[in-house]
């Protein structure tokens, strides 16, 4: 976790503490509102970190080495892990809604991987899906005293009893065992909710319902995944003649929670839903993240067994590609990042580095679009028609699609220099140097022009670096270029309008 947070969290209770201290860990030099906003910002970083970590794990799955009879199962695992990542995105966005409602600044920042965090028992890391990484995900998503509250006959209880010991052993004996002094995300939410619930700590005036229109809604961001949430849920209650739905054994579709908030009750309900989704089901047809990871762990250990030494019995026939741990395009990282640099892998292939750069640019574009939407009030432009807000929302989704495509290219691209034995690379998800929006509207739009121009340059470099791109890679680059040209055209119109508006204001 960044020092700027850590230094204020000395009093925050560790996960091992059973009761919360009276001051809820608040340093003396903070007001309650300020402390709350910091905690929410910390949580946003965690949600973001988890989301990307899971995306990387999901995209690692596949490859020709996967036995034909196991491919359908592996594909389903990928869909399941992607569904969890989408739900983490929902958490991230809902937390931004709460921050906005409380008058804070939207925060999509996080550290690059690997990333040691006070609230996460392991460093956040990008790594391919293995039994070791799955064990960590199960461990961290598990509720306190996991398994104790399950009905004795449930499949979950059975899976827990079969694997709990193995999972605990695996994480405790892993290269980086869980931190003993870790603070838990569950405690973070507990503290946050305690603060919000108390009118003496957060007054009614601290809520800004007028920001509701600027917040993200399920209708716009949920993309119809899962149960309707927030105010959109009105009229979406259970059919009066509905038959009980069968609980999915391992859902492959996400149940995205995106809740805009206006009041104290809204905020409490939204954060309670977010807090519970990891550990417990959000609906009767859903399984918690914990249960889903455990299900995959169960199948993984059965279908890709290990020998007595804890090595895969068949090294070659694994469900995931052998992706690098914490790929980076940065060289000489060690000097800058101390010990954690030992857990990074530099992408040394020049062409792959270019693809990785293109990935990072699109990632930046996505995060910038997302941040910007919170500034543009939805539905409140002068015409009361769709405008820049909705355009950016849809463009953000377009960039998610690009990240998917580029991830699939990167996991097939060589990590090392030409001539060396093939090892696959992977998406580095490197954070941009800034996500701060300029004050001026014109400058906000100019950012996109810069990023799109940079993408064009990288595409040209890719063509220059390689004259043997696959047909699909060529087609993808040409299609992306075409989409970017259309976006630039749209951007010019919006920029012109912003300039006119700016000149009128002066």
């Amino acid at each position: 976790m960044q020092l700027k947070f850590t230094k204020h969290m000395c009093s925050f209770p560790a996960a091992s503490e059973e009761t919360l201290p009276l001051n809820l860990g608040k340093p003396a030099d903070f007001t309650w509102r300020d402390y709350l906003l910091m905690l929410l910002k910390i949580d946003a970083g965690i949600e973001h970190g988890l989301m990307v970590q899971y995306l990387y794990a999901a995209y690692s799955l596949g490859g020709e080495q996967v036995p034909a009879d196991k491919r359908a199962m592996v594909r389903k695992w990928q869909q399941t892990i992607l569904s969890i990542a989408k739900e983490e995105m929902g958490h991230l966005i809902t937390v931004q809604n709460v921050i906005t409602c409380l008058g804070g600044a939207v925060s999509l920042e996080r550290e690059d991987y690997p990333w040691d965090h006070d609230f996460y028992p392991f460093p956040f890391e990008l790594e391919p899906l293995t039994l070791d990484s799955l064990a960590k995900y199960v461990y961290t998503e598990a509720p306190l005293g996991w398994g104790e509250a399950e009905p004795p006959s449930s499949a979950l209880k059975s899976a827990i009893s079969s694997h709990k010991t193995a999972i605990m052993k695996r994480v405790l004996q892993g290269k980086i065992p869980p931190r003993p002094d870790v603070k838990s995300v569950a405690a973070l939410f507990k503290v946050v909710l305690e603060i919000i619930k108390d009118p003496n700590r957060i007054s009614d005036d601290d809520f800004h319902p007028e920001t509701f229109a600027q917040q993200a809604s399920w209708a716009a961001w949920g993309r119809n995944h899962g149960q309707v949430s927030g105010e959109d849920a009105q009229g979406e209650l259970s059919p009066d003649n509905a038959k009980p739905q069968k609980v999915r054994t391992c859902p492959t579709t996400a149940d995205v929670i995106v809740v805009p908030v206006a009041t104290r009750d809204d905020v409490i309900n939204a954060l309670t839903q977010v807090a519970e989704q990891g550990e417990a089901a959000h609906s009767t047809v859903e399984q918690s993240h914990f249960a889903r990871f455990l299900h995959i762990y169960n199948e993984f250990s059965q279908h890709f067994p290990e020998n007595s030494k804890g090595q895969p019995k068949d090294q070659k026939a694994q469900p995931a590609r052998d992706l690098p741990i914490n790929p980076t395009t940065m060289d000489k990282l060690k000097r800058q990042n101390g010990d954690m640099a030992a857990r990074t892998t530099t992408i040394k292939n020049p062409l792959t580095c270019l693809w990785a750069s293109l990935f990072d640019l699109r990632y930046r574009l996505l995060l910038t679009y997302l941040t910007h939407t919170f500034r543009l009030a939805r539905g409140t432009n002068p015409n009361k028609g769709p405008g820049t807000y909705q355009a950016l929302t849809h463009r953000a989704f377009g960039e998610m699609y690009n990240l998917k495509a580029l991830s699939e290219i990167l996991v097939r691209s060589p990590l090392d220099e030409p001539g060396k034995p093939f090892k696959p690379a992977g998406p580095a998800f490197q954070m941009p140097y800034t996500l701060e929006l300029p004050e001026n509207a014109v400058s906000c739009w100019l950012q996109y022009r810069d990023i799109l121009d940079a993408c064009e340059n990288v595409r040209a470099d890719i063509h220059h670096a390689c004259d043997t791109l696959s047909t699909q890679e060529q087609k993808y680059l040409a299609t992306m270029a075409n989409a970017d040209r259309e976006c630039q055209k749209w951007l010019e119109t919006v920029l012109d309008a912003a300039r006119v508006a700016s000149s009128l204001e002066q």
Partner: protein
Amino acid sequence: MKKHTQKNTPTIEDIRILPSLAIGRLGSAKEPLDNYEVETDPKAPLGFRRITQAETFIVDTKSGEITGTRPPADTPPKFKSGNKIRPVAPFLEVFASVSSAKGETELVPLTTDMLQAAGLRVRWHIAAGNLKVWRRTQKEKDKILAHLSDVEDHQLYPLKGVSKHFVKDSKGKRKHIPFGTIQFIKPNTAFPEIRLRFTPANGWVYGSTPLPKHPNVEIPQEMGGPAYSDVDIPDERIVYDSEKGTWNGKYRDDQPTLNTLSQGLYAAYGKAPYFNYYDDPQPARGYLDDACDGIVTIELLDQHDKIQFTAKARFCAAPPIFAPDSEFVRTVQDDVMQVLLGPQVDPDNTPLEASLDIVRRAYETVRFMNVNVLNGDTIKGRPNHADTMPADDSSDYDRPYAPVMAPHSIDTLAITALHQQLYTAMSSGTAPWFYDALRKPDETADLTDKGRRKMPALMSGADTNYLALTHRQIDTIKHAGQGNMFDSAPPAESSGLTPRNLTAQLQYRGRGNPLNTHIASSVGNCCPGLELDFRSIWKRAFEGITLVEHDNYVLAAEGKYEDLQGHRLLSIEIPDADGAIQIHPVVVQAIGPSADGTSVGPLRTEDNPDAVVNLEWSNTLAAIWKHKGDYLTCRFTKEKMLEQQVLADIPKKQTITRKLKVRDFFETGTTVINEDLASPGELTQGLCSPWQNDFRECVCYYWASSRPDYVNIEPASDGGSRGDNWMTKKRTGQYVVDDYKDNRLINYQELFNEWEALLKFQIGGRDVPEE
């Protein structure tokens, strides 16, 4: 059939006519439209595809010969000649099934040499019909039929549509409606192949004699503004006798089950701003058109006049496609392909390109839709009264009115870009991941917010509910390119034109035929349809009964099934791949939020207390066709019920079951739709009469890439888009929301009389400049 052999010539083993269903397109210009191709620009793969002229046959209609060809060119053909639209006149080619030197059977063009060698000659028969009036009135004398028999020469033959209710001219001869012309193209040295050409009619509106002064005749209401009832039909086009027939003033749709869906698809209109027959039903005003569909039959006769080989094909005459560089997301080809190959794809052998094609067609469709309007949002602060799906949800099901997507959240440019981003990501080899977002065919009446937001959104299907793709399209998106995750080699491409490769036959367009002659250019969500009311094809799926094209009511029954007339089909028991019986209901219940928004449940109305909705036949019957010739158990209501509708799961004691034999959808071994399913004229019988009515009354949520809605689109300064309603007479860049009393829009009279001049073709999303 006998085999005919001669030295050095292939042996004719069988014959086919291809394409098996050719679309002609109406227009009164003298010169038919040139052949053209549509291709993707590799430098702008997301842009409007390029239209280029392709090799075009020049036919001398006097001699009947092809005298030469116009070479390909980089520019699009001229779709209009002055103020007249160039008709699209398809060629129907005859192929012979022959054995190659390698012993493989293939289809090759039938030539004069082959005929000569086999001692055979050609004879054609053509039958066509326009049954639009008959479909409504059910009076046999209202059928407009045309026949040409024993055509062996190469003259240009007019195809004359005649009805017994047509008046006689001054010479005492019964008037007719010209359906176009037929010409057996004379083979010559350069073009020795056997082919027939259908040139459709002008696209004119025909009328009825003045209304008789009779107490039982209702005079249609006069409207303010542009007077629709004053449509001026020239005397020579007054063909229908209003004294003898009921089509003018005496007929009105008043029985929802038996009438077309929608009712009143003739020149009738209710209260403004958009057509709503139910609120204010009006009598038919006696208008007819010169569209038709038909069947051509070829016979190869030996010296003793004995028929040695015969083959059939279908044709129809339809309005033009006004956005020829775009394809619709669900076409008739998708529906026919589902019959041919089944509702499921081979999960391990479906190339990514198949789903890319669907996504491309999705953005080619949505880019002509003003999605802001179709979402039901207010427009510039003004209530939105356009005919939209959310408006229909409220009027048909009493669902509380609400936009489909979040209010003001969608704009055409942004949604087009979003679909294009899907395409972009998939073009890298990424398999589609949005199967869950698609509406399944049995979810078309799910009017919850979540149900309405599934894809395709905002559009109507053939059942007037939300459009679903075909099962096969949906399964394509589920499975296409899935092997890429495991670096599997792409599936092999299919082989060429052979007698057994029915897919290739179905996709065959024909030499010299423009792209818009093929069923891949034809909208598939027929309600009623543009080229064809394809719903009509399913009504005789089972031998012995005839269903209504949009309803589960048994309209007619014969033989041992005679007692089923008047009952309703509820479900069909169909064995699945493992032989287990699956029950396929043909009706579902519409669900949605209650009026107070506190619960979700059946959307009951006074007329429809169980909220029963008929599912479209194409998807509902998709699983039966592989059981052709077999008997399937069908469950019917025990009682006859015309007015009432019931759900499929009513108590069994209220039902009866019968085993019914599934017909073959195609003529044996071919891709020609079985004549038992639809006789000439039946494939177009449910369409509007005249078809121009549909362009005025049915907005683009059926067919945006054929009849565009939103054109000349540019980014707007507010971040959305600006552009024109295609139906506006003057282009301003300010979209006019549909309202037929708004004189900025083309009105009925103008559309009936000047449609060719007023309707503008779109190339690249822009009006093609007038000459």
